[in-house]
């Protein structure tokens, strides 16, 4: 290998239970470069970065750092090899001080005479913060006194503090305001200056092109391509990310949207701590796309529609009449179904049979005097298993060992079985292989034709553009723009609104 290469990724594969997150991925990263890593959600960006940073460990393949094979079992070890990761989700712990957060897991550094010297730690933390140009955060302060952006900045400081050889930034920009971003970019610059390398993951391609020297594209866990300099043209990148022109065959084919004007779900002036003045109407047979950055409030809105959260003010109305959705049960009674973003923990019961999962919320329908006997359950579940073509060994098989797509189908089967006519789907295709995605899109179309109304919450713009009759883009809890279905809509158009 030549001395310019810092990191060689060789044939990395990783699968979570049945879904393949990474397939035989291999590419190199040079010293001192800022490398972008792009791909749709579920294309394996985060998985890869987590493997490099030692959060996960790969099923097969190896990572070579400076010519030596790197096998780390924990982020702390990775840190010792000079690899730092800024994670996508919240990485700070409430209830402990900023300093303790910055040096979480490495308190030993400050042990003198068997005790952690917190004064020293605070000073160190102050330094760390100053290094990235922050001086208004008291390192002794409890993190829960800070807002999300400040917490992210603390994580940046934490990552930069060790002057990593390789700094991995995983979709951090999303949570940051312009000020925060400028800090992040200056950090990236200075890492580059002292000869370090940065692996930068983001959705925002403009930003990416500005910051990065080169960019690597992943698609569905497969390495596609790496291109440098002027070759980084946003649209080409997109094409490569998605692997097809937008409006590819397996999205909806019809260009204009036919929607009955019967309103099934209405939201008026809803406020919560995460949502600001939400107003929209959902019509029968409409697919309403909700897009935005992951913390823009669309997921909260989804929970709200299903009665998991209550609006602080404002009203929700189903079929014209105002309803108080105190809890999911209430929502279900109003024939609302919900597919949560974190499917495995919230939408289905992994350690329970497919049959039970499908029947669970329809039990009252298939039971006599409250008794639901196997015969009936089998008939019921079979009917929906066949309708949705769920691949399985047997009905009494546990959901845990189904593939992501089939799990998703089980959830849908559950709601269709219940006869819910309003479906709130939060990232229905997250972490699912192309094939199944397609099936789910088809299904959505069918449902649309049958007159179901669907709220499609998604972080994948092509999906939104491809599927929805209307797209609402949210930003910091507000609906910032509404776009009717038309071939003119492009991702860049939406992204502009999102950021």
């Amino acid at each position, binding site marked *: 290998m030549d001395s310019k290469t810092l990191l060689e990724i060789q044939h990395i594969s990783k*699968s979570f239970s049945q879904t393949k997150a990474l397939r035989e991925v291999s590419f190199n990263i040079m010293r001192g470069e800022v490398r972008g890593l792009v791909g749709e959600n579920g294309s394996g960006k985060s998985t890869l970065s987590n493997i490099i940073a030692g959060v996960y460990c790969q099923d097969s393949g190896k990572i070579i750092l400076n010519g030596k094979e790197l096998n780390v079992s924990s982020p702390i070890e990775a840190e010792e090899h000079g690899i730092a990761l800024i994670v996508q989700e919240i990485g700070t712990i409430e209830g402990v001080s900023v300093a303790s957060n910055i040096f979480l897991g490495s308190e030993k550094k400050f042990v003198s005479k068997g005790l952690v010297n917190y004064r020293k730690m605070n000073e160190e933390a102050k330094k760390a913060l100053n290094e990235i140009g922050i001086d208004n955060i008291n390192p002794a302060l409890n993190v829960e006194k800070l807002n999300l952006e400040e917490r992210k900045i603390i994580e940046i400081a934490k990552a930069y503090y060790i002057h990593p050889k390789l700094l991995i930034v995983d979709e951090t920009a999303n949570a940051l305001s312009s000020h925060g971003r400028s800090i992040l970019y200056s950090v990236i610059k200075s890492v580059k200056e002292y000869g370090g390398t940065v692996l930068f993951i983001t959705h925002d391609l403009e930003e990416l092109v500005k910051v990065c020297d080169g960019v690597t594209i992943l698609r569905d866990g497969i390495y596609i391509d790496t291109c440098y300099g002027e070759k980084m043209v946003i649209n080409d990148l997109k094409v490569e990310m998605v692997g097809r022109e937008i409006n590819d065959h397996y999205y909806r084919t019809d260009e204009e949207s036919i929607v009955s004007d019967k309103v099934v779900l209405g939201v008026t002036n809803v406020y919560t701590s995460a949502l600001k003045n939400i107003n929209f109407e959902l019509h029968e047979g409409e697919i309403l796309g909700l897009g935005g950055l992951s913390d823009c409030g669309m997921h909260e809105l989804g929970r709200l529609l299903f009665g998991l959260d209550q609006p602080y003010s404002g009203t929700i109305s189903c079929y014209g009449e105002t309803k108080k959705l105190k809890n999911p049960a209430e929502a279900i009674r109003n024939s609302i179904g919900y597919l949560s973003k974190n499917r495995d923990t919230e939408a289905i019961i992994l350690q*329970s049979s497919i049959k039970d999962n499908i029947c669970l919320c329809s039990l009252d329908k298939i039971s006599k005097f409250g008794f639901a006997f196997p015969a009936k359950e089998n008939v019921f579940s079979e009917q929906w298993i066949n309708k949705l073509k769920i691949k399985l060994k047997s009905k009494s098989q546990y959901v845990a060992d189904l593939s992501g797509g089939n799990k998703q189908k089980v959830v849908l089967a559950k709601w269709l079985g219940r006869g819910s006519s309003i479906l709130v789907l939060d990232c229905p295709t997250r972490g699912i292989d192309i094939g199944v995605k397609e099936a789910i899109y088809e299904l959505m179309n069918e449902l649309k034709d049958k007159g179901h109304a669907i709220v499609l919450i998604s972080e994948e713009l092509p999906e939104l553009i491809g599927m929805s009759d209307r797209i609402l883009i949210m930003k910091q809890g507000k609906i910032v723009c509404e776009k009717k279905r038309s071939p003119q809509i492009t991702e860049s158009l939406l992204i502009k609104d999102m950021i």
Partner: protein
Amino acid sequence: MEQKNNKSLSSNNSDRWMGIFINVFPFVGLLIVIIGFSIFSSGATIRLSNSIEVFNQSFALLLVTAAALFLLSQDCLDMSIGATIGMAGAVAAYISKTSIPIAFISAIAVGLLIGLTNGFLHGVLGINAMIATLAMQFILRGLLLIVCQSGTIGIAIGMYALDNTALKFVICAAFMVVCYLFFQYHIYGKQCKAIGAGKTATIQSGVNVTRVKVIGYAFMGATAGLAGFFTVIRTGAAMYNTGNMVEFDVLIALILGGMPINGGADSHFRSAIIGALILGVLNNGMIMLGLGTYPQLITKGLIFIFVLALTFTMRYQLNKNKRL
């Protein structure tokens, strides 16, 4: 944790065997205990007379275990079962002097009340189940001491007639059948298991978890009341320590019956019956062999921990995803 995934696809075969073992070992356990003791005691334990005693002695246990199944299947514990039995028994004994039917009703009513309180504390106020019920246990034991101030509370002579094996058998059988139906086939039973397997998902399937929990504790309490009634009939009086340590017996019984400690879809009704029987035979046998209090406790404790360890590690191997 993640590393566990590496071989998630492999070792399906051994998994299958483990699964079979987990389902079979309660039966095996029962056989071992019965045969073992009948050999040790040169057949004394399997005489009909003794078998009847075993039934009489484990009657209360059978009832409460069946009821506790509903709770444990939703990953809840009740440490106040014994105290509830004591309290209900005391009340029943006290009232029996005026009227036996009323005594019967009031025993169940008291149990129900206690159960509802537990349900409220855990289900509504969300206090950790074990702590809440443990506190409840201490309160009840305290009250029991005050209630029994005047000495033990004796039952009315007329009540002795009720201590008749046939009657108990009928009641027990009926109770078991009802519980079986409800646990395996009724919506409620299914919801219990669902909660144990995945609470959030169950909530998002529109199950009112609070209600399920409160009902569970209420039923537990009522059953404990019933058990208390028959316990005092059996002993002839309620004492400050009536029903001592029953909750632990229940836990052991369920574990021995092959119940997963945190409930879920793997819980079957047979666990209750088999477990209770194993424990009944075990207790009876250990007395027949003349084991003292401490060896008895130690044996029970060790068996408990061991079976727990065995089944739990196996289940852990079987469904790692659960804890990811």
